[in-house]
């Protein structure tokens, strides 16, 4: 499809030039949006493509953030090492959690993921020696890309790192959902019993995609810690998991790029309104309801429908 290729190209160009257009605090906000976008996109893999609604996805973002913070603070490694650590820890924890949770389906799956996430949140909260408890870990440095290599301390440099990670992740996730494995996921989403009677047990597929989603959420969290300079239990709290679901639905479930936009819209509303009122969630809620009612399929789903029609 030419229009979607064009808009992808336009988006890439825009991402490349904005650092010279935006003021520093705006660029910093955009970095935040992109990190949230990566988190929402990872959730879309399980929610949109496999039909598994997780209420605990923030846990993997949080694990990534803590792993990254600890690696940067205590071992002073280059940022990519911290990113790898965050992604790996999130993925590793997702293996047992996914193994148990995918034994259940529907609301029971959702409740299991929530229970495990709240357990992990409690660990982060209580294990003061390691995590700093409710204060979290502050003073996480932005180490360079590699020793002797380019510094990531400037907001522009870090923005480019985040943008590159998000774009790369988007391409990888797109390839995954179009692969034989990704096609199988969508069949599971559509009709699990049919899938089973066509010759495969859905559970290993669900486990693998659960872990992949956790890895990308972990990567997002691992970017978050050095960007904001801290990791704290809030990023693992169930509220953030719920916001992830809203981001995915607002942007367009099962589109990957939609959730990135949904997350950007969500955080943007929050950022703009929270300086005027602490009740910004009311406005977000209204926007969410309006989108669900009037734009089924979210921003991207609606745009594609209109594009297909005209």
């Amino acid at each position, binding site marked *: 499809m030419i229009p979607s290729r064009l808009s992808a190209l336009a988006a890439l160009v825009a991402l490349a030039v904005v650092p010279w257009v935006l003021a520093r605090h705006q660029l910093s906000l955009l970095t935040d949006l992109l990190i949230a976008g990566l988190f929402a996109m990872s959730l879309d893999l399980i929610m949109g493509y496999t039909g598994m609604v997780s209420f605990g996805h923030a846990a993997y973002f949080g694990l990534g953030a803590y792993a990254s913070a600890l690696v940067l603070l205590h071992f002073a490694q280059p940022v990519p090492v911290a990113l790898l650590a965050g992604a790996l820890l999130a993925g590793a924890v997702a293996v047992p959690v996914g193994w148990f949770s995918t034994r259940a389906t529907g609301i029971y799956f959702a409740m299991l993921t929530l229970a495990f996430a709240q357990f992990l949140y409690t660990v982060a909260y209580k294990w003061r020696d390691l995590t700093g408890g409710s204060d979290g870990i502050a003073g996480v440095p932005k180490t360079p890309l590699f020793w002797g290599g380019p510094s990531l301390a400037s907001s522009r440099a870090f923005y480019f790192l985040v943008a590159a990670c998000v774009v790369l992740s988007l391409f*990888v996730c797109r*390839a*995954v959902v179009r*692969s*034989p*494995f*990704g*096609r*199988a996921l*969508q*069949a599971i989403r*559509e*009709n699990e*019993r*049919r*899938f*089973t*009677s*066509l*010759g*495969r*047990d859905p559970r*290993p*597929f669900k486990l*693998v995609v659960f872990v*992949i989603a956790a890895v990308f959420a972990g990567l997002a969290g691992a970017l978050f810690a050095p960007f904001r300079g801290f990791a704290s239990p809030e990023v693992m709290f169930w509220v953030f998991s719920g916001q992830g679901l809203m981001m995915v639905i607002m942007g367009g479930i099962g589109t990957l790029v939609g959730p990135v936009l949904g997350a950007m819209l969500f955080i943007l509303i929050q950022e703009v309104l929270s300086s005027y009122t602490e009740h910004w969630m009311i406005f977000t809620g209204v926007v969410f309801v309006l989108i669900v009612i009037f734009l089924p399929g979210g921003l991207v789903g609606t745009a594609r429908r209109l594009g297909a029609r005209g």
Partner: protein
Amino acid sequence: MTPLLETRGPTPLLETRGLGRAFGALQAVAGVSLAVQPMELRAVIGPNGAGKTTLFHLISGLLAPTAGHVLFRGDDVTALAAPARCRRGISRTFQITSIFPELSVLENVRIAVQLKIGDNFRLLGGRAVLEASEQRARDSLRLLGLDDRADELASTLPHGDQRLLEIAMAAAQEPALLLLDEPTQGLSPEDTAATVAVIRQVARERKLTIILVEHDMDVVFDLADRISVLHFGQLIAEGTAAEIRANAEVQKAYLGGLD
């Protein structure tokens, strides 16, 4: 024709021995022993609630039996779950249409092929698998006369075409044994006739063994090599169309009670 449970002679493709399934106090299937020869088209008939669908679940592995055994190509597959039995060559359709509604017609069939033959954990790339399975899917759609609807969403097909799509999915898996649970349910007389013709053609072209649940007696007598009659979970008769027509017990239990 081979008599039921003959000890010598060719191995039946499918055999059940004393197969039973209880739901609490209800014996939905009780002590069913039957043997289906390769290339046979077998009809299973019986009034509503006779246990036909339950029997299919037991054969395809979606339900575990509470008694008895299922043998496929002479191997005891009773302990195998549904996916493993499908990979061995048992494909099926459901009485209540079971498809992937928001996937395209082509993708419904293609994924059926992929799940049978493919490299399902290929996370990146996989063009070869996708193309090979698409080829086979298109062949199957052509066989069922659905090739011109390949790009539509499965949910948008009319009921009759959805029934055919499900057969296309199962047939594309190139099974040895195909189980069809009331393929003509809810179809108009014309669609029924078309579906029957297609089933006959699929059986011939793919050299399939088929077990079919069907309510329309004209269809059954027309299509089936042999007929098994279930009543309250028990096999009360088995034979050719002529034998079943002449069977007094069947008359009493089923045919007489119909209409």
